[in-house]
């Protein structure tokens, strides 16, 4: 069974600084997807970034980028130029590649606080 581990329950960063959130996962699959979702106090789950395992290039979305290390089964999220609006819970998630069981398996989340 797949598992996702986020070892940092809480992180804090000053506005405009850079912060990295860690995620490791365990799977025997070769093809899969990895995601980072953000959940602000509004409760809405918002996709931040996604990575296909067959792609070697790390995904980037504006200030958000990932460091995907397939052999190490590591998928960290880097937030550059942190903004107050980045304050939220961040969830790392894993999904098999189109097997018919397309469920997201989530980590336990990291609460990020951005300070002015």
């Amino acid at each position: 069974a797949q598992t996702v581990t986020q070892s940092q329950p809480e992180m804090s960063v000053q506005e405009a600084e850079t912060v990295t959130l860690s995620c490791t996962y365990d799977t025997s699959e070769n093809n899969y997807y990895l995601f980072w979702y953000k959940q602000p106090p509004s409760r809405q789950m918002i996709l931040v970034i996604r990575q296909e395992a067959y792609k070697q290039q790390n995904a980037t979305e504006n200030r958000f980028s990932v460091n995907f290390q397939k052999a190490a089964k590591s998928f960290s999220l880097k937030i550059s130029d942190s903004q107050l609006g980045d304050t939220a819970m961040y969830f790392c998630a894993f999904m098999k590649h189109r097997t018919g069981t397309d469920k997201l398996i989530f980590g336990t989340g990291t609460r990020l606080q951005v300070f002015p």
Partner: protein
Amino acid sequence: DTAVSQTPKYLVTQMGNDKSIKCEQNLGHDTMYWYKQDSKKFLKIMFSYNNKELIINETVPNRFSPKSPDKAHLNLHINSLELGDSAVYFCASSLRGQGFTEAFFGQGTRLTVV
């Protein structure tokens, strides 16, 4: 326009009651899901439907019954509510066919059983 919408956003009810949560998506997706987020913020899949067919049922008590009248709707009915059912329930949708997309989530329904 809201992509995935759930109603109600908040639901407070007494133990033993039966309640329903409705979900609709206007994204043209073919797969819909129910996830449960517990008090520690842990998210876990409950059900998944693809083209109105149940494809995932994750060891959920049979007091929970999903119903998908069409591809755009997935409702969750809960019988004989218990205190432990208090949680936030998220509906989500995605496209599994050509042009696969990630899951888009509704705003969640906070269920409180008293």
